[in-house]
């Protein structure tokens, strides 16, 4: 009996595995897929889950109303149904490869990049298949050379340059301001360290001091790194750091008396993943002075049409389980871009002739001034070689526990495209 | 008190070590288990104390009864509580614990604090050498002292039956004599039954009431200690004594035959 149980178990497992490899049944209606890889495991898990929710809600909205957004008059073709297709890649490049092949085989025409390792693993393949993709990650690696991955906020170096511009504009003293990097110890954080960035900073009148690394998520306060900055007399610290990393860092900074309004004057600015709104909410007045470039608006900023739209989506499709994470906006945005690319492509190419290439060339490249209802800093424009959709960067600062817009700066395109 | 009925022991489902061993220990008796290496003496003790289970061994046949209760399915912790305590082979002191702590470990399952204290003094009375070292880390004791400590620890549990595995192994002859005498004394004073495994046959038979000889997992000879002491085979094989004057060549042939009969 023991042996039979074993065989039964083996058979069940084999059957289960087999069923997953069966092709999806052909559907009568016209279906297009939106979505792509998600990283529900790993450091971006939280962001990715919120993005997924945003994509799902936006797709449900388009399917139901056939509208693209409340403020837009264009209609999505009535006979085409959208479906969300996604797989968890656990932020492992080899896994992303097979997921990508699977989604492609299922007939997906647009892709999604959930983090820098995935971007690095997939960007060549996407380019070979001429598939356009939206991305949550935005390091300089996306630009070597600019390919078919599109971001909806500026890449990290451009964001940091915007902070440097803003800080320099408000610099009152006669001496050169001193700048250093205080950044996450991974590919994302280190994407700042390109020669062009340093050259730009020195060019606009900074004295560059050096770099300190903080673990992506520190398990102890980064006292050493901060003390070093203090000792070197740094005025502005730039970094790419996600929220879990910047909260303890800022907390320790305040404790050591470092901050724009504290006895040691130093400003800490991060490129987008710091999400000023979330940060302000979690830290309250403790986080005063923290600067974040390219952040999304806070989810309770209902006056903005895009944010109102997000809120309405949640009311409608997510009763009782509202997502408070700011990357929900990114999900809506990402779905918006993907759907727009598909819609534009369908205007030029008949439905059954749609290929990834057609969507890339007739879709993504043709997106001009896509009105996102101010979710992104500016309307989005893409083209061949132009993967950064926005051309202006919002700069927010935490003041009295609230995220406040303090300025904006044009995208500098720091990275010299090879 | 203890009754071992025709037990068979198999290790790792393959190696059969005991092939039908029976023995009895009556109240207040010292029973000696004798025999050469690999005969199954230690295995018999482990089967009784339940220690086999920690070494992938198993009693596959026969039964072990203690005070009328079958114990061959019990784990070592359970058996220890019933009143059997074992002093294992090789002076297994808890090296990084002090002497006194070692002894207290022996009395771990006892609830009567006063009794434990008295027994501690009793053990120190038996082994005055150990008393001087009561605060010392036991790993640094000499071989004889460690052996005393191990016996003392077994004693601390106030067992009804004590299993002693080769208390004389690797000790100087004088020390052997001392330990053997103390065992006898414990037996007399405490009226404690003792099952003694020994290679030092003469010393064992001096104090034992009854003896069994194990060869290849079988009891080949048993009887009162006095009889065994006089037994020609025992004398020859285990005490190295032979009849004076016997012709050498003949003796060797006979030796071989007799040996063969034993082992067969």
């Amino acid at each position, binding site marked *: 009996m023991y042996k039979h149980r074993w065989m039964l178990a083996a058979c069940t497992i084999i059957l289960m595995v087999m069923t997953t490899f069966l092709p999806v049944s052909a559907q009568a209606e016209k279906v297009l897929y939106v979505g792509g890889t998600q990283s*529900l495991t790993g450091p971006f898990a939280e962001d990715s889950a919120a993005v997924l929710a945003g994509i799902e809600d936006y797709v449900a909205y388009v399917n139901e109303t056939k509208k693209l957004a409340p403020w837009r008059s264009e209609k999505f073709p009535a006979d085409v149904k959208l479906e969300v297709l996604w*797989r968890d890649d656990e932020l492992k490049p*080899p896994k992303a490869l*097979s997921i990508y092949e699977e989604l492609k*085989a299922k007939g997906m025409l647009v892709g999604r990049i959930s983090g820098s390792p995935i971007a690095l693993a997939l960007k060549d393949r996407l380019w070979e298949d001429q598939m356009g993709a939206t991305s949550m990650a935005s390091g300089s*690696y996306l630009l070597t050379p600019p390919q078919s991955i599109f971001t909806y906020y500026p890449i990290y170096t451009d964001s940091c340059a915007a902070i440097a511009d803003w800080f320099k504009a408000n610099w009152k003293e006669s001496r050169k301001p001193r700048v250093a990097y205080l950044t996450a110890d991974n590919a994302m954080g280190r*994407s700042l360290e390109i020669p062009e960035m340093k050259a730009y900073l020195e060019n606009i009148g900074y004295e560059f001091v050096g770099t300190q690394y903080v673990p992506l998520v520190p398990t102890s306060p980064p006292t050493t790194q901060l003390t070093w900055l203090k000792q070197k007399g740094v005025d502005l610290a730039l970094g790419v750091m996600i929220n879990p990393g910047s909260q303890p860092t800022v907390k320790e900074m305040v404790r050591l008396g470092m901050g724009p309004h504290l006895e040691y004057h130093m400003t800490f600015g991060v490129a987008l993943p710091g999400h000023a709104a979330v940060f302000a909410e979690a830290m309250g007045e403790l986080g005063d002075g923290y600067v974040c470039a390219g952040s999304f608006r806070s989810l309770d900023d209902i006056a903005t049409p895009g944010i109102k739209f997000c809120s309405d989506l949640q009311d409608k499709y997510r009763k009782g389980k509202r997502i408070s994470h700011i990357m929900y906006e990114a999900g809506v945005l990402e779905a918006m871009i993907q759907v727009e690319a598909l819609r534009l492509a369908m205007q030029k190419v008949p439905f059954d002739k749609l290929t990834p290439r057609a969507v890339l060339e007739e879709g993504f490249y043709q997106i001009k001034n896509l009105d996102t209802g101010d979710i992104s800093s500016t309307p989005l424009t893409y083209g061949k070689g132009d993967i950064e959709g926005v051309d202006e960067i919002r700069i927010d600062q935490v003041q009295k526990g609230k995220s406040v817009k303090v300025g904006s700066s044009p995208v500098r395109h720091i990275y010299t495209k090879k | 008190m203890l009754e071992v009925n025709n037990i068979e022991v198999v290790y790792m489902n393959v190696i059969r070590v005991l092939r039908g061993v029976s023995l009895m220990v009556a109240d207040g008796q010292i029973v000696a288990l004798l025999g050469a290496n690999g005969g199954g003496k230690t295995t018999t003790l482990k089967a009784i104390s339940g220690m086999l289970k920690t070494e992938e061994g198993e009693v596959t046949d026969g039964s072990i009864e203690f005070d009328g209760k079958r114990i061959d399915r019990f784990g070592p912790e359970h058996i220890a509580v019933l009143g059997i305590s074992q002093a294992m082979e090789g002076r297994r002191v808890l090296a990084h614990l002090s002497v006194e702590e070692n002894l207290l470990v022996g009395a771990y399952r006892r609830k009567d604090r006063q009794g434990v204290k008295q027994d501690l003094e009793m053990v120190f009375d038996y082994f005055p050498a150990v008393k001087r070292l009561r605060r010392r880390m036991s790993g640094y004791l000499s071989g004889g002292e460690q052996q005393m400590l191990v016996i003392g620890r077994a004693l601390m549990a106030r067992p009804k039956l004590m299993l002693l595995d080769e208390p004389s192994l690797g000790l100087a002859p004088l020390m052997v004599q001392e330990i053997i005498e103390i065992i006898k004394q414990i037996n007399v004073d405490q009226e404690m039954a003792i099952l003694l495994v020994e290679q030092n046959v003469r010393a064992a038979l001096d104090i034992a009431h009854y003896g069994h000889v194990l060869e290849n997992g079988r009891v080949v000879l048993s009887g009162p200690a006095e009889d065994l002491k006089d037994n020609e085979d025992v004398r020859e094989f285990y005490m190295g004594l032979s009849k004076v004057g016997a012709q050498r060549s003949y003796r060797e042939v006979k030796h071989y035959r007799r040996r063969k009969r034993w082992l067969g």
Partner: protein
Amino acid sequence: MGLRTGTFHENYAEEMATFNSRLRWGLVAALIVVLFLCPFFLSDRMLTILTTMGIAVVSVHGLNILTGYCGQISMGHSGFMAVGGYTSAILCAELGWPFWAALPCGALAAGIAGLLFGLPSLKIKGFYLIMATIAAQFIIIWIIIQLRSITGGTDGLLVPKPTICGISLTSKANYYYLVMFFVVLATITAHNIVRTRAGRAFIAIRDNEVAAEVMGVSLWSYKLQAFFIGCIYAGAAGSLLVHYVRFASIEQFPFMDSVWYLGMLIVGGMGSTAGAIFGVIALKLLDELVTVSGPILAAAVAPQAAASLALISHGLIIIIFLIFEPRGLYHRWEMIRAYFRLWPYSHEASE
């Protein structure tokens, strides 16, 4: 035609033959043919899965020699893969070497790294060795980041498209053939290494180090040999992986991969060539199953359920195998074979 039930060897050559019956020969040949034909009827996705499986098989064969046969537990295997991968990537990208020359160099470099980090194994074992190899993993990755000028640091390194004799290996089918060639090669060599003098020495060291030394096995030499050979496999696998992704980045060689290679060995069965393959297939299939069932589970329960599925299922599989089937799938496979071979008198062999 039935299955052979006894030993029919009549001379030493037969005893030592790798495949001791015509049936075996036939099976192996058939398997190779099937592997060859795969690209003609399998989808790109299946080829991708098979290719990544193949790369893992090469790597796990190395780990099997080191851990399964020689008993030197390594939890830095992914780090050694990184050495191989980066070496060949640098040779190709910076020095313009051809792929066929860079791959063996990568393997060799990993082997040398293995020797270096294997040195502590002469003094330590068990848990301590595991710690040393974990340290190796992190130190290797750190050194790669430090050598930014040649490795690209955390940005990674673009690797040119691999070609062999003018044939571009960029198509999925071509690369699949390349990987399968290495899989077959690795399997045959791994299977044979165990039958050599060194292989027997490894097993002796695993079973009892002190006894092996007393019997004249030079621990010093053979342990290092095991590290060297095991890491050569890792290096080759790392090199294959890097050229497959056409990008070298430290994120391709995470610490957890080292752990899962060991997991594959346990599930498959330590110390058997077939076991290594079984383990890779089993865990990779589980991985795919988890990926596919993620969205379903997320819709039915909660998104977190999908995210935790991968971690929990992997952990549980290992736990179940450790408790109920510690000798791995290969042992079960042998049992089933014995069952059918002796059928209908097979009740003895079933357990």
